[in-house]
């Protein structure tokens, strides 16, 4: 990745005029950790998901991306900061939360676990509608419609099946059908294909993209897999130790990564065609977030002296580069990258 694509390609779509469906601002989620130390799972995140847009949230396991996903759906209450739905702060009173949950749906990693083993496909898909609309005469019709939208055709053959009778891919389609029956505006998918066979992954990802294209569905896809993000996402946010460290369109971030962490992640992909850069140092621990730049202890740029050459090494060790704004412009929370950009 020597020749970076032009940061503002001419065919880049104009920014969406509509406001974000779901957004986080200054979001912190802290858990009481072992031994009284607080784990800052999410440590100041601004993020926006706009209508008809797939945002990939990428990071190592334990970086807080699943917690962020759950906080966006109101399943975890933020310690500070807020989640907003169409610009209005999320209301955690049960009646308001229920209304919100009709519009935003969750898809989890393991479809075997996210389906109740004793409920038929019909029960699983109809559940959301029953919660919000009660039992209606057109229920069966709607269930069948949701199943075929999720790619399970003919739907009648699946209605009375139990999850254990289906393949992994079929189960994940059932989970997605259960989300689609409510005509949601946004889906938060936490590693939606990580537990599936490689042959099935592509199909599920294509389904998500088709839902975006045909129904204007917005989605946040949490993944540790940059290749997956490249394939389906419009925008990408790279997360490290509770903070988004680089953000931008997929092309911007993946073809011209600025943050040393993103570069390291990309370098280990087999397609990268460059020397894999294995990160040294301790794995990230959210109970002990280092001062200065949270990545500095493992940062290859700092270790190799290039940060010193750019004159930012001291700032790397002592000054937090701060959270990135949710605006969407390509940006990296890195003193060195900013110095490079400023210096030309």
């Amino acid at each position, binding site marked *: 990745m020597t020749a970076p694509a032009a940061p503002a390609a001419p065919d880049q779509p104009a920014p969406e005029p509509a406001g974000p469906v779901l957004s986080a601002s200054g979001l912190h989620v802290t858990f009481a950790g072992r031994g009284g130390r607080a784990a800052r799972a999410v440590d100041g995140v601004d993020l926006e998901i706009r209508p008809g847009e797939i945002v990939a949230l990428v990071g190592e396991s334990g970086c807080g991306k699943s917690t962020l996903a759950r906080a966006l*759906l109101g*399943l975890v209450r933020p310690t500070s900061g807020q989640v907003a739905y169409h610009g209005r702060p999320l209301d955690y009173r*049960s009646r308001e*939360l*229920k209304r919100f*949950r*009709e519009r935003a*749906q*969750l898809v*989890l*990693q*393991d479809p075997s*676990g*996210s*389906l*109740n*083993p*004793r409920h038929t496909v019909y029960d699983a898909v109809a*559940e*959301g509608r029953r*919660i*919000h609309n009660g039992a209606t005469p057109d229920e069966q019709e709607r269930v069948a419609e949701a199943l075929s939208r999720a*790619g*399970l*055709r003919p739907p009648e*053959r*699946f209605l009375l*099946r*139990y999850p*254990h*009778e*289906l*393949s992994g*891919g*079929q189960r994940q*389609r059932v*989970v997605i059908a*259960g989300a689609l029956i*409510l005509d949601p505006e946004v889906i938060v998918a936490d590693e939606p*294909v990580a537990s599936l066979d*490689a*042959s*099935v*992954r*592509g*199909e599920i*990802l*294509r*389904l998500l*993209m088709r839902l975006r294209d045909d129904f204007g569905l917005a989605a946040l896809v949490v993944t540790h*897999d940059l*290749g*997956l993000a*490249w*394939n*389906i996402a419009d925008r990408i946010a790279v997360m490290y130790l509770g903070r988004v460290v680089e953000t931008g369109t997929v092309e911007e971030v993946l073809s011209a990564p600025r943050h040393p962490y993103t570069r390291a992640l990309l370098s280990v*992909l087999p*397609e990268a065609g460059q020397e894999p850069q294995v990160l040294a140092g301790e794995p990230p621990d959210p109970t002990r977030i280092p001062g200065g730049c949270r990545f500095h202890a493992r940062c290859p740029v700092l270790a190799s002296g290039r940060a010193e050459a750019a004159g930012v090494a001291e700032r790397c060790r002592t000054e937090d580069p701060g959270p990135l704004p949710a605006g969407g412009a390509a940006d990296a929370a890195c003193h060195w990258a900013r110095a490079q950009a400023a210096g030309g």
Partner: protein
Amino acid sequence: MTAPPAAGATADAAPAPRAGGRRPGLPPTVRYLGGRVLTALVSLLAVMVTSFFLFRVLPGDPVTALTQGRAVTVEQLEAMRRDFGLDQPLPQQFLDYCLGMLTLDFGTSYQYRVPVSDLILERLGPTLLLAGTGTLIAAVLGLVLGTRAGWRRGSVMDRVDTGVALTLWSVPSFWLGLLLIVLLASGAGLFPTSGMSTPGVTGPLNVALDVAHHMVLPVATMVAVVYAQYMMIMRSSLVDEAGADYLTTARAKGLRDALVLRRHAVPNALLPTVTLIFLNLGRVVSGVILIETVFAWPGLGSLFYSGLRVPDLPIVQALFVVFAGSVILMNLLADLVYPLLDPRVRT
């Protein structure tokens, strides 16, 4: 890049035909049922054989015990031995025993001189009444408390409920029974000290009330001592379920917490408890030997106790087989009910 989206999108959409895995011959349901019934019969046979030898290993000679303190001649002792069949060589006794068991002829009691089957039938009702009521109350109480504790694990309520249950569980039932008798029966005079009925009470309603009055203390003793096991099983299987993703999914769809518990968590957490309940239903017949003895309840438990003292071999042998047989039967029923409750076992 692991997921080339160019792969065919419809290959997964067709339901996989479930032709594989089916063996020729009997349909799977019949195979399942047949297997379980066969296992149960083998267990029952093993119990029968064990029962014969187990009580002959016990010290004590029935003839000596029954004639203790009385002047009897050697001829009379010989006659009794012949009468009981104890003069035969052991293999012959075993053969007679097996033939009797297979024809449901349990022999005649040494001490009561009546057929054992009559004794068992006469004592079965009181035992079923006492232990059945106790098991039912203990199971319901345990399931309700266990659900509460498991759903709010680590809360003050969980700790208090669990602590109380485990304390009572570790109390010997005969001691608790005696304590209740001393405090509430002979002490405060609120309840009768023993037996199942007061002589001279007539009229169906009065008899029922009288029996219920006699039941309070033995049932309370039994419930207090055994409800902990239902509670702990329910609690731990609910704790196992509490982390399940499908509960998160249901919550994310907007289902209220109470309904997540009732519709999703409890039905699944009940599955392991079903086996326990069935096993304990089997043990209802063997009653609660100690409790029946302490409260002089005229059930199978006290019959077993009286048979054991002699040893009255026909009684203890038959009761052992009946007790074990009812556990085996209920276990079999649990296996047969399980597929109805859990679709995963069905195929």
